């Protein structure tokens, strides 16, 4: 398979005005991905599928990612004059990154036996701008998985042939895989609670009606 740089350049040449960005993955898997802008996602995807040197004809997996608002800290060496002497000082700058949702597609080529190529689409924000173009017209195998992302993350895929909830019922209003999802309160019987479940279960506790005095006994001070 060609390198990501080469594929990125090919994409930008093929679809005029397309902005493709490499999202580096510093982890052990080294699976870096291509972030494609929403406007040109469908032509770029069609190009990736149809170009004879690439021919990514199989979309094996589609999934969603929820990114909350976060603060990125950057440290940079800055030359400063301290007490008349020029020194290199670490300066941390904080950058606020607003949250967004992502759809991640894993592509393989059955014909050329290469892959995976990972492409991402990113929504504007997490509240009202959660629309993305659907890649189901390009890869039919994305249909059910885009429905699943719609169900669990709330991304609306424009151009999807049959966008309905798939796991939860149609009347359901929430998106359970979002990080700020709060479960309904059915914690009245939790025999062995811990962590968040303990906090939720505590609201259902009744206080002991009678205390036998044992709770006041403390270890003798030595």
């Amino acid at each position, binding site marked *: 398979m060609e390198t990501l740089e080469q594929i990125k350049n090919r994409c930008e040449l093929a679809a005029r005005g397309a902005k493709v960005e490499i999202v580096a993955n510093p982890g052990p898997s080294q699976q870096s991905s291509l972030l494609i802008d929403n406007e040109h996602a469908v032509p770029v995807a069609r190009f990736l599928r149809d170009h004879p040197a690439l021919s990514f004809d199989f979309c094996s997996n589609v999934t969603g990612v929820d990114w909350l608002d976060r603060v990125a800290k950057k440290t940079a060496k800055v030359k400063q004059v301290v007490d008349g002497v020029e020194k290199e000082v670490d300066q941390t700058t904080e950058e606020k990154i607003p949250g967004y949702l992502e759809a991640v597609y894993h592509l393989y080529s059955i014909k050329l036996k290469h892959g995976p190529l990972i492409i991402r689409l990113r929504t504007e924000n997490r509240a009202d701008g959660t629309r993305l173009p659907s890649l189901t017209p390009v890869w039919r195998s994305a249909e059910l998985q885009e429905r699943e992302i719609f169900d669990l993350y709330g991304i609306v895929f424009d151009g999807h042939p049959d966008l309905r909830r798939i796991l939860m019922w149609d009347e359901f209003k929430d998106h359970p895989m979002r990080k700020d999802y709060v479960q309904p309160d059915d914690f009245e019987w939790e025999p062995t609670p811990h962590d968040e479940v303990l906090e939720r279960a505590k609201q259902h506790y009744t206080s002991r*009606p009678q205390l036998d005095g044992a709770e006041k006994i403390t270890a003798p001070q030595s």
Partner: protein
Amino acid sequence: MSEQIDENLRSELQRQGVWVTSMQELYNWGRKNSIWPLQFGLACCAIEMIATAASRYDIARFGGEIFRPSPRQADLMIVAGTVTKKMAPQIVRLYNQMPDPKYVISMGACAISGGPFKQGYNVLKGIDRYIPVDVYIPGCPPRPEALLHAFMELQRKIDNQKLSGSEKAEFLKPEQPSEFPVPAFGDHDLNPPANPKVYHPPKLERQS
């Protein structure tokens, strides 16, 4: 019918070739040895239930007989597996369609409490939130022997049911409902999340 015959007299009569029994005993004997379970499975517990019904364990030896594909022909509902919130209304509806007397075995950790999936947003924390359960089987999944044991426990329970008097079986009391409200799909959860007339969780007395 409600008068108990003296055990010594009965065995003495039996020795003389006279078989004495009561209507209640005969009725319960017939019922407990011909329990037709409803044929449906929800998850991996269903595989164990299938094994129990097949030749090696053979629940028919105990009167489990044939699994019926229709709730209208079944006496026993074996809730075998994880009950998701999307599936729960259908389970209650199937239970409502079964004729009285009917019994429920809650098989495996999931059907009892939600089991390993208890904290999931999509899993019902026990089928006893909506329908009354007669026998609970712990295990994940329980072995076929455990299901057979639960089945024999249920037979013992049926054998001890009274047909008359103040302690008569629940299904003979006219005020006892044989159908329970089917929960509706709500905006955030099932509506209601539990039937308070059926579900009585133990109160935890702890310092909060």
